[in-house]
């Protein structure tokens, strides 16, 4: 195993831990914390998908991550606007 693969696996484990932390964050009482938590989950899942796609050579993981990043941010801004009261 080369050092790049080990570091990728370490990164994936770290982001899995962060996904659990973000899930806990999303379960807080206020609506905003739900939005913040889901936004964090979106980012971490995107990084995990790109990492897994790189390790196993699965090309469409990258496309899924791109869609997830774009739609996640659009959804976050939309929900935040609704939460604002406009």
């Amino acid at each position: 195993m080369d050092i790049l693969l080990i570091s990728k696996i370490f990164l994936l484990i770290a982001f899995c831990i962060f996904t659990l932390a973000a899930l806990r964050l999303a379960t807080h009482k206020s609506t905003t914390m739900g939005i913040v938590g889901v936004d964090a989950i979106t980012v971490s899942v995107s990084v995990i998908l790109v990492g897994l796609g790189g390790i196993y050579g699965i090309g469409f993981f990258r496309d899924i991550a791109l869609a997830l990043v774009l739609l996640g941010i659009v959804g976050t801004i939309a929900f935040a606007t609704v939460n604002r009261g406009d």
Partner: protein
Amino acid sequence: MITPSILNLIQSILLIIVAIITIIVSIGILRLDKDMDNVVYARIHILGVIDIAAVIAFICLGDPLLGVLYFILAPFAAHAMANGYFHGEDEKNNKNLVEGNEKKDDKKDFTEEIESTGFYKNANEFKEFDDSEDKISISTLKITEDE
């Protein structure tokens, strides 16, 4: 001259740094005192660290397009969340949300709109004009064929 092995080493070091930062953020965001003032803004601020860590991770994993895209879009999302919280839920800092101190609705009253058309001189005239009985008299008329 940068050889591929040096590039791999730099990539690996950056990925390990990102992983360590991510673990520190995961622990820190859960240990943050929930009774603290403005804790939501603090959490959004902490997640800014993850945003940059994710950008570095995307670039190091060979996806610079995603990294640049997220680098541009992440501040908009963070600002939208903080702005939404301030105007929607933050009763400590936003005085408009405190009960009895609400902002007056910008929409005009219905009678003021009618008054502005000029058909009635003022709103009181509109209120005094009551045609409910006329309607009843019309509706109770007996119409025969002879008439």
